[in-house]
């Protein structure tokens, strides 16, 4: 065995590698990064499960994550192995049978909580612990390689996002906008864990943007970065969304635009330098983190093919930007319950109504604090040229409390909640990205509590979780309801699709389990092999 071990020591690295060039392509059999590819389209070219065959979609296996309560992980799949996360945990699973291959658990992490998935590159798996450590594991075995603390949890930071693996680096962001931390995006060497660059979303005193904070003693002010960004490999440009200014609901101590909160920042992936930014909600007092996925598409706009960035924003407008320059092109509302602004002007600034700030007694404003959409993944089909967005029609009563906030202490400065007698309602809307109008919509019956996103496919489908806990497949062109399966619980994750040995599957995390579906095959009698020992 010792000889076998010596052989194995040097041979492991010959096994299959997750290559940057493969992540850059549209997902094929694999699902290699949080959004399927760098564009954020969440579009799969697989066609075995399609408009006709989806009627035969049946459960294939269930994998239980011990101790889990609310999984939000997007599974990644490479070479028939699925990688999912729980709280401070990564599980590698045989993707066609649901059997465990290895589990890594970090019992030493100082904070437990939800996690949205891993990144893959080479023979490594990367994930973030709740207390802000970037952890690298050996993909074949789950063996620990290194970890790097990227933020101090005692200062209000925590981490939930799936990291983004680039050519030779891994990019992370932070949560904690309700604690007045200083948000940032940071890149680490994929091989050593050495920090390569860090971009702060809150400028230090004297830096550009610092004067947009009035009395607040920057560089503290929130601007978290808790969702995985998207990336244009040809431009070598990262697009990362930023969250709310702090305190969330009280803006009196931070009069001004509060840069770079509620924005998309375009960063040079090699240096972390800011190429451009666009702020969706200047001086936000409604906790409308701009954390919805920025979707990168190339479309004809005013007669010319343009590299565009689409963002169905939590503030209720669907934005179209030129992703090369950051130039604002247009924005249209994609919800009907929208009272905070009458529109977006030619420069991209909202035309804000008066009397929208939260008050001590509470004030009705639309959309709700959960937003017209949120972090649930949208998807874009190049076939239909539609953007599929989980959309919430809801208003909230917003309460604001005047406060002079001490830095790095949890302080919301108020809050928001549903208005009695005015329940919210979710829709899946198939949006024309350039007009914000929906070609069709799927109205959901439910308590308006879900957090599930979408995947769309070349099989002509859009697959998503609805508000009553069902996984649903619709015709992506018409919205025709083709298939559903009752998961029996509120869905808080987005589905993916992948293929192993010629068989296409659909997977989604739900509650404490991973569920996987495939096309029906009749069972055949099983003849076990001869087995010695067990």
């Amino acid at each position, binding site marked *: 065995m010792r000889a076998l071990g010596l052989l194995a*020591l040097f041979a492991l690295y010959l096994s299959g590698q997750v290559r940057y060039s493969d992540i850059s392509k549209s997902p094929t059999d694999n699902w290699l990064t949080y959004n399927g590819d760098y564009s954020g389209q969440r579009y799969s070219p697989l066609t075995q499960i399609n408009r006709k065959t989806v009627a035969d979609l049946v459960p294939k296996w269930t994998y239980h994550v011990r101790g889990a309560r609310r999984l939000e992980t997007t599974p990644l799949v490479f070479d028939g192995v699925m990688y999912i996360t729980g709280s401070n945990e990564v599980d590698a699973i045989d993707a066609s049978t649901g059997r465990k291959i290895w589990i890594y658990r970090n019992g030493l992490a100082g904070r437990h909580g939800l996690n949205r998935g891993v990144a893959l590159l080479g023979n490594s798996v990367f994930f973030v612990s709740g207390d802000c450590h970037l952890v690298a594991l050996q993909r074949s075995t789950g063996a*620990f390689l290194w970890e790097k603390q990227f933020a101090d949890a005692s200062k209000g930071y925590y981490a939930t996002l799936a990291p983004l693996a680039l050519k030779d680096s891994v990019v992370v962001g932070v949560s904690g906008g309700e604690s007045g931390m200083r948000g940032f995006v940071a890149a680490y060497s994929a091989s050593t864990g050495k920090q390569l660059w860090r971009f702060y979303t809150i400028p230090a005193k004297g830096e550009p943007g610092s004067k947009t904070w009035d009395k607040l003693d920057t560089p503290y002010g929130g601007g978290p970065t808790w969702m995985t960004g998207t990336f244009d490999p040809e431009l070598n440009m990262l697009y990362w969304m930023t969250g709310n200014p702090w305190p969330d609901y009280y803006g009196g101590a931070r009069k001004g635009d509060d840069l770079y909160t509620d924005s998309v920042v375009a960063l040079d992936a090699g240096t972390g330098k800011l190429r451009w930014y666009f702020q969706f909600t200047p001086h936000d007092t409604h906790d409308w983190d701009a954390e919805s996925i920025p979707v990168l598409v190339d479309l004809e706009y005013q007669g010319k093919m343009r590299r565009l960035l689409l963002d169905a924003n939590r503030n209720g407008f669907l934005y179209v930007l030129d992703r090369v320059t950051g130039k604002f092109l247009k924005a249209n509302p994609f919800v009907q319950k929208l009272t905070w602004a009458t529109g977006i002007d030619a420069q991209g600034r909202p035309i804000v109504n008066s009397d929208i700030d939260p008050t001590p007694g509470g004030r009705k404003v639309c959309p709700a604090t959960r937003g017209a959409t949120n972090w649930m993944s949208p998807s874009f089909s190049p076939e239909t040229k539609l953007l599929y967005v989980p959309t919430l029609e809801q208003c909230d009563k917003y309460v604001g409390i005047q406060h002079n906030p001490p830095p790095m202490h949890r302080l919301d400065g108020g809050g928001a909640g549903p208005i009695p007698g005015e329940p919210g309602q979710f829709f899946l809307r198939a949006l024309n990205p350039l007009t914000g109008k929906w070609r069709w919509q799927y109205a959901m019956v439910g308590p308006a509590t879900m957090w599930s996103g979408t995947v769309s496919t070349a099989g002509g489908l859009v697959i998503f979780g609805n508000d009553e806990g069902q996984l649903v497949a619709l015709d992506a062109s018409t919205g025709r309801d083709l298939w559903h399966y009752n998961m029996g619980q509120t869905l808080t994750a987005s589905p993916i699709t992948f293929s192993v040995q010629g068989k296409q599957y659909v997977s989604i995390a739900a509650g404490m389990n991973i569920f996987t579906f495939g096309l029906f095959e009749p069972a055949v009698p099983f003849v076990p092999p001869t087995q010695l020992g067990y």
Partner: protein
Amino acid sequence: MASSPCKRVVPCALLCTALCMAQSSRTHAQVKSPLAGQIAAIKAGQHRFQEGCAGCHGANAEGGRGPDLADNRTIKRMNAAKLFDTIRHGVPGTEMPPSSMPDENIWEVAAFIRSLNTAAFETPVEGDLGRGRAVFFGSGGCSNCHMIRGRGGFLGPDLTNIGFSSSIAQLRENILHPSNKRGGGFRSVTVVLKNDTRIEGIAKDNSNYSIQILDTHGHLHLLNKARLKEVVFAPKSPMPDTYGETLSPQDLQNLVAFLSRQVIRPQTERTAERSRREAN
């Protein structure tokens, strides 16, 4: 029966302690172990334990008529004073008797039991870490199969955090008797496919219908058993069971010392809390 006060311990004795002990938490919080973590006290406690307690709890506290004390969540959570009280007063209503040992001897036994339930890296240990490292990465051949922070082989469990997940006693046991505890995705297996292809490696998982094998080249084979003709598990662990003979006692101790200090994070809030609990 000998007169040792620990002799008539019964099943569930210590497990019942939390419910049965009448002492107030204030009293417990005020009592500190005078011998916590002292190597000499642990050794003396082991001797006394084997004299008087092992008859029910097993020679190495692995359990018998009495419960397993070596890897016991209740004892892990029990502070030192409660452990002392359990030995001193027994567990009323059970066969676990009170002890008339002097306090110091009870503290020694408590220190021994605690050492079995304490992460290795929190336990004082004798030995030369540098020499232990040399055994691990050199003469002992451990790193042919085991990895620490990315260095080493992959057929055995990763040991980067072994100082947190094992006690000193478990470390020693696993080195000396690897076949006593098998499984967990590291069993040696050979399978023959119906086309006569032979695959040898480690079974990461095995069910009635599929088996997942990491072969010696690091390739994963995800196999439906319907494709297989034969599955043969090795009767013993792939890890040599001869380290008790091939390593000198001092090298063995050095290796245990080195492994006991392998943790991903040396100190966290959680481990600090455990240290505080131990001190009180």
